[in-house]
């Protein structure tokens, strides 16, 4: 019984391997769960790039884990699956280098072109011998918010840090401060106690107290949509609506409504659709025509959403691309 099952499984694998070996470029993209809101946009980007592969008689195959419980080993397994199925090129995120780097090294050792995207940075691409890195950098997202607000004339800003110690949040905040400084302003960090994390009221009251004690502050940067909404409430309760301006990381329906209503100045987006689209497109062209992109580290973000483009973003949300 077990043997037949095993044989059947091998047969299915072999079949899918032969099926995948079509004439054109066959690109395998490793990513998150397809029903994850962020990853569904990345997947759509990869699929849209895949239209070009189909034009050449090739294909784009999305490989995602069932869940995130055992992310590193599961993703490494998906990378090896892509090699086994005869991928012409592979796109993958370096989420857990310890678990995934050996699999990526196997890709490069097999002579398969590789692009790292979403996580790992250009450092991971260099270390692994990948062609390129496609993704956003947290530091630059914060920097973009700082520059945006300072150039709009709000030169004293604070970054609302609800999770002190988390490396990515520190990167957002130091980027924000540097962005403020680069445009002639000054930035600081409002550190919240760990008890405030995820509690909108605690964040709102902290923001309000900080603004009342520091009347010079006219700009805020919040990480995540929940903290952004809470910060807006804090500004309102401090009686400073209109005089203190906010940018936030990421967006959702209510953030877009805030931007339309003018209570929020901008949202910073890492533009997941672009990650899937460009990483896949680079490899399709490379396999088909041998072209390369000499620009190393393709940044897909930060993208800025403000009153000038919010309508377009709302249309993009409906299309599943933003």
């Amino acid at each position, binding site marked *: 019984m077990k043997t037949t099952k095993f044989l059947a499984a091998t047969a299915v694998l072999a079949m899918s391997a032969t099926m995948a070996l079509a004439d054109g470029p066959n690109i395998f993209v490793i990513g998150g769960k397809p*029903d*994850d*809101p962020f990853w*569904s946009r990345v997947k759509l980007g990869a699929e849209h790039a895949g239209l070009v592969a189909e034009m050449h008689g090739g294909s784009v195959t999305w490989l995602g884990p069932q869940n995130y419980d055992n992310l590193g080993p599961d993703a490494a397994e998906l990378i090896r699956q892509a090699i086994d199925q005869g991928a012409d090129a592979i796109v993958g995120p370096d989420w857990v280098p310890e678990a995934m780097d050996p699999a990526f090294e196997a890709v490069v050792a097999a002579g398969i072109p590789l692009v790292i995207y979403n996580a790992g940075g250009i450092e991971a691409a260099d270390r692994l011998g990948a062609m390129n890195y496609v993704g956003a950098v947290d530091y630059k997202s914060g920097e973009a918010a700082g520059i945006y607000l300072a150039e709009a004339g709000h030169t004293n800003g604070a970054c609302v840090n609800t999770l*002190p110690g988390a490396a990515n949040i520190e990167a957002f905040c130091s980027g924000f401060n540097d962005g403020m400084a680069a445009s002639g302003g000054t930035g600081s960090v409002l*550190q*919240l*106690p*760990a*008890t*405030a*994390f*995820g*509690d*909108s*009221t*605690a964040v*709102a*009251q*902290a923001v*309000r*107290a*900080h603004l*009342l*004690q520091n009347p010079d502050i006219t700009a805020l940067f919040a990480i995540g*949509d*929940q903290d952004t*909404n*809470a910060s807006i*409430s804090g500004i*309102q*309760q*401090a*009686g400073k609506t209109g005089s203190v301006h906010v940018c936030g990381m990421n967006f*959702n*329906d*209510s953030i877009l*409504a805030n931007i339309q209503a003018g209570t929020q100045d901008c949202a910073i987006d890492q533009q997941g659709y672009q990650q899937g689209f460009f990483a896949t497109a680079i490899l399709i062209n490379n396999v088909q025509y041998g072209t390369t992109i000499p620009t190393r580290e393709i940044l897909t973000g930060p993208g800025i959403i403000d009153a000038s483009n919010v309508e377009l973003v709302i249309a993009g949300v409906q299309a599943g691309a933003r």
Partner: protein
Amino acid sequence: MNPSQTQTGARRLSLGALARRPETGSLIGFVVVFAFFAALGGPVFMGAPGWSSWLNIAAEVGIIALPVGLLMISGEFDISVGSTVPAASMMTAMLAGHYDLPASVAIIGGLTTGLAIGFVNGLLVTRTSIPSLIITIGVMFAVMGLTLGFAVMIKGSTSVSYVPDPTTKFLLGQFINNMFSVTILWWLGFAAIFFYVLHVSPLGNWILALGGDRESARNAGIPIDKVTIGLFMASGFCAAFVGVAQVMTYQQAQVAGGQAFIFNSIMCVVIGGVLLTGGAGSILGILLGTMTFAVVNQGVFFAALDPNVGSIIVGALLLAAVLSNDTFRALAMSAAAKKT
């Protein structure tokens, strides 16, 4: 700073009848902490912006701390409040924001979610011999998973936004004078109800007896299962109420969040002089504990201290409260013993 001051305070007042009141320690803690931050925070902290700032915090955690306190007095824990808050806000935002149902239906839906979670907690606690700490942790994770699962399944997103109509916003989500959250009034209302339950109605003695000695309480004819289930439903309801109020205030619901309420509510209750093992505590104490907690939390921002200092103070207060509880209880016991 705080442990020593509370301790000396205890000794100085040890002869007075005041010292035998269970909330004396909490009152001293509150006065010391308030004076400390009033000195550092300056006029802004002493003015309406400062008061409203910490009262807004106190109101939300306070509404949850009241039933959590009653449960602790009866000898039980409720950790599940941490996921009841987001579950109820998600239910409300989903019904009103996604399915466009009237706000009243959405609010009832949110509150019913809380009652149902409380009922499951109570049922499991009374039907099994598993400690409530473990059961409510289990229920918390189950509810967290269900909330995330349904949100992603129905909405395809981890947050749902909803803009409430003016009446609903006025009742649950507005800021009076653009400063004082309307939740403060609801908190006082809940406090009055729980005060009646614990200190006036016969139910109060039942709850205290439950925490003192469960078996004796059963033998004395107290319907202990009904009381326990009722208390868990009360805490589910109150946590859900905070969740609903948050939707109306911040106009969106998130699947995560609310976890902070678990420890914060327990801390308010313990700082308020409730005995961790049950059998002793008062509503006034819980209110004072909540206010102390909120003053420390908000005070650090007005005093321009590192917020981590606030966490240290809260931690120290917690230990001081437990120590002084023991002291006050010993005093009360010895005083009572002398009388007889």
